[in-house]
């Protein structure tokens, strides 16, 4: 009886917060042709990295491939809504951001979209956490969370890397 009550409480919490606070896994489903990512569409090289939207939020586009993320490091402002859009050019990869709830698979043929907001500045590791081949263990990227005033207008170099001009 007590066990059933505890299970009911846990399920009720998960369901209620899922409905009221949108606390659920990302449910975005978009298809994309993985064989032409570099030729056309959203994930061409010039469109990768960080982009500032008209509403002030930030969109980061990343391609996962054996065995790296492109770009390898991205900069985003602290305390700002950040949307990550990822896709894979070859096999299934994983995408994880420590200190956030971001944790998704990156499947070829689909666009994975996750949103978060970084509360603290710093450098966060973005490891691939889905075994993707012999070089999987070395597949790391980084996101550098910088103050908002330092992110006012990222240059083309800053969009696809963490170097500053």
């Amino acid at each position: 009886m007590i066990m059933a009550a505890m299970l009911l409480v846990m399920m009720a919490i998960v369901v209620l917060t899922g409905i009221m606070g949108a606390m659920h896994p990302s449910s975005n489903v978009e298809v994309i042709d993985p064989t032409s990512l570099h030729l056309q569409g959203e994930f061409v090289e010039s469109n990768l990295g960080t982009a500032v939207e008209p509403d002030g939020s930030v969109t980061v586009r990343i391609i996962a491939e054996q065995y790296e993320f492109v770009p390898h490091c991205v900069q985003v402002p602290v305390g700002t809504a950040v949307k990550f859009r990822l896709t894979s050019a070859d096999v299934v990869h994983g995408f994880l951001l420590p200190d956030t709830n971001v944790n998704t698979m990156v499947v070829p043929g689909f666009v994975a979209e996750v949103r978060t907001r970084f509360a603290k500045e710093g450098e966060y590791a973005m490891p691939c956490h889905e075994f993707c081949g012999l070089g999987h263990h070395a597949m790391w990227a980084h996101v550098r969370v910088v103050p908002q005033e330092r992110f006012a207008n990222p240059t083309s170099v800053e969009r696809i890397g963490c170097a500053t001009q």
Partner: protein
Amino acid sequence: MPVDESNQSTAHSPDHVDVPASSDQAVQALRNGPIGAYLVASIAVGLLFLGWLAFYFLLFMPRGSIG
């Protein structure tokens, strides 16, 4: 065949072995159940439940939605 007394256990001696318990006595002994085991299991499950609540409300919820 002679029996070597020094090689026998005390279970061999009626003086050291209790009479078999009757079914009534067994029922009597088990009537209240294994209270201690229930207590330990309850504490363990309770701590697990509290841990789940703590992780959910203190770690998972503040990190916000990703959808």
